[in-house]
């Protein structure tokens, strides 16, 4: 956030919020309200299809991967950086996972080792992005754009010339199995979200993320190891993308390069709709959860409302742009600089 903006709005805010308790300002109330409105609209328009257990299952299934991706992206965006490598890392992790599990192309089967190595690979790719970003002081969007294509490239090489299919029963069904009523993938993502919430509120990792996002210089004046911390966060984001890749492959049963296609757009849109500022320091886990649910439910609603699949992408893009403008509307100020 810009300092001048702070100064300008300071008096104003003091007038407006006099009387409200300090420290209890909930920045995610707006996005949550939007979510409630969307749910209400769809409940009224399509009561027989929207408000059903099957549709709820469908939404949770759809939301599980975006949830995980949004956690990594939130931490990165909170620092004022961006990670565009999501789809590339997902692809690499997916191919590593499938090729190291029992599959149709080779005879390797590392069991639990396969997902672990895939996660490690994703974490390393994030780490690399972070190191290049901090050591060579290259904007994170540029580095991660590179990592994206490196990831796709590695995945393409690993893919070879025939689609590797998972042959193990467990690996092929685990993500979609639902012993708890909802799919395992969703359970994992919810646990992941809770851990992320704890980390962001109660640990040095989380608090330093906010500090760096507010003002990197001030953070380093306060003895925060800014560069090291940034590398950690990028590694975390790489881990998230890899986890999404593993879960996605398990659900699909095959390892494909374009597994993550479209996820980058959805994830960033979700974070922004949730009210996490791209300039950093504001927003958080709850915001992103609201954002993801908004995006997923909007897409779900478009299907239920019978929007032709031909138009769906464009309409969903349009809806998301409108949603971003609407959620950012209260924060616009004529002299605020948006880059």
């Amino acid at each position, binding site marked *: 956030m810009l300092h001048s903006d702070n100064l*300008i709005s300071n*008096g*104003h805010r003091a*007038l407006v919020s006099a009387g409200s308790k300090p420290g209890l300002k909930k920045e995610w109330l707006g996005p949550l309200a939007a979510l409630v409105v969307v749910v209400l609209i769809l409940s009224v328009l399509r009561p027989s299809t929207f408000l059903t257990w099957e549709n709820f299952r469908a939404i949770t299934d759809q939301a599980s991967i975006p949830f995980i991706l949004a956690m990594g992206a939130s931490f990165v965006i909170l620092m004022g950086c961006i990670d565009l490598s999501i789809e590339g890392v997902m692809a690499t992790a997916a191919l590593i996972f499938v090729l190291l599990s029992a599959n149709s192309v080779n005879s390797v089967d590392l069991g639990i080792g396969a997902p672990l190595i895939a996660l490690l690979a994703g974490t390393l790719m994030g780490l690399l992005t972070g190191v290049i970003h901090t050591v060579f002081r290259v904007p994170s969007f540029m580095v991660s754009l590179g990592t994206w294509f490196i990831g796709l490239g590695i995945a393409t090489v690993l893919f070879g010339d025939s689609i590797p299919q998972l042959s193990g029963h467990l690996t092929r069904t685990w993500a979609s199995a639902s012993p708890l009523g909802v799919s395992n993938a969703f359970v994992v993502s919810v646990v992941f979200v809770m851990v992320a919430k704890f980390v962001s509120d109660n640990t040095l990792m989380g*608090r330093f993320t906010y500090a760096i996002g507010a003002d990197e210089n001030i953070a380093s004046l306060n003895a925060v190891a800014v560069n090291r911390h940034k590398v950690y966060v990028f590694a975390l984001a790489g881990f998230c993308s890899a986890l999404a890749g593993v879960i996605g492959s398990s659900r699909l049963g095959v390892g494909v390069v374009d597994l993550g296609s479209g996820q980058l757009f959805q994830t960033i849109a979700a974070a922004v709709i949730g009210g996490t500022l791209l300039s950093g320091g504001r927003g958080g886990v709850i915001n992103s959860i609201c954002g993801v649910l908004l995006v997923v439910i909007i897409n779900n609603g478009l299907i239920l409302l019978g929007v032709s699949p031909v138009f769906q992408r464009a309409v969903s893009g349009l809806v998301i742009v409108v949603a971003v403008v609407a959620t950012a509307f209260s924060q616009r100020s*004529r*002299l605020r600089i948006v880059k």
Partner: protein
Amino acid sequence: MQETIPLSLCNVSKSFGPVRALNNVSLSVRTHEVLGLIGENGAGKSSLLKVLSGIYQPDSGDILVYGQKRTFSNPAAAASAGVGVVHQEQSLVVNLSVAENILMSTRATKSGNKDCKVRFGIYNWRKINEEAAEILKRIGSNINPKSKVEDLSFADRQMVEIAKALQISRQPGVQPIIVLDEPTSVLEDNDIQQLEQEVRRLKEIGSVIFVSHRLDEVMKFCDRICVMRNSEVVGERLTSKVNADELFRLMTGRQAATTSRERNKSLRDSAVVLNLEGLGAKGKFSDISLKVRSGEIHALVGTNRSGREEVCRAVFGAEEFDSGTVRYNGKVVSRPNLRESVYGGVAYLPSERKLESMVAGMSVAENLQLTHRGERASSIFVNPAARRDKAKEWISKLDIRPPIPDADIASLSGGNQQKVVLAKWLEDCQLSLLILDHPTRGIDPGAREDVSTQIFAACEEGAAVLLIADTLEEAISLADTITVMRDGEITATFDLNSGAIPTHAELVAKMI
């Protein structure tokens, strides 16, 4: 005797290449004392502070702590001798809580982890909040440690900064020496009274070094005053045995000039340049009506929440208003717009110099012609030679130092930057309304005079001035009319030309 002095510097020198930043500086701080350190910008105060806080290492000379020679190789080493610095720029992370801010950098001094406030990277919020509350209590503050810094006023933020410095410098068996670097530059008059109590309290706990360039404050706060000029300590006086004129002479090397001017008695007949009628913006200000005439200096005073900045910004078109009218030279401006304002002869000098009015990285000459390109420039191409000539004119007129048109504006001292920014607006030959938001904030007395002189000159030429003064004294000495605001409304108007000059107390009474 020597051992009882917690901190002293002996013949400390520091150079950067050919530039001597400190020349044989000696200074000692006694317990339970407030030591004032004054000097113009560039006199060497900041370098001295950086040596004290371990950021710079002196080339020669010694630092003595209770008579023992010590090296401050980094800020942590300085902190271990009890030195805690409250820097001029805010060093708080605004989106974190007060407690987090106070305890954040204690990790640097390695004392934070001992009592398990953070274990395995996980916060123990209860302990963090308790400890922060305790430190805040020591300086007599009841700020809630859980509140976010961005929700605090500037005065409270300053308290948090002091608490943080105190926490950093808290060492067993050592009395804290808190350095306050220009603590009043962002504060308003009533907040400064709060700071005064603060300093009293700190004095009971340990010692204070109070750095400022405002003579009145130094004389009010300090027991002893050190004056710096040209990288040297040129004088050391007990406050009880010195007057402001002597300090001014020591500081600047020249006699004090009178800053107040002869008031223009014939204002009633001059044209109304700006006429506000019932101007209001929801949540910011309401029902603001005032007139500013050609040649008049009209000061708006009030606390920093009174809405006066917002009024100025609304007039210029940098913020919106939703009721009332703005009449500029008799014509109604329904929606002020930045570009139209600028080309219509309105100038606005924002208070945030670094962020809103200068382009760091561009030269003095380029900054001067950012807004108005002068008569000699063609509409498309810039003429560097003409630009440089024009810049030289202003440089000599305003005594801008160094007198180099091609110097990067960021390399100039604050006072000189402000002169360039002011000149940028005065460059407009049709200037008719000059809006000044804290034109002298953070600049030294010499530069302040130069700036005041230019403001008067603009008035003489018929410009109307809307001023938010840095202090009440400044408003009283400069303005023809003073309008007092409180909570977004006008509470009083004083016409100084009628001879009734309000006192400090009268103004404060209407402000709060």
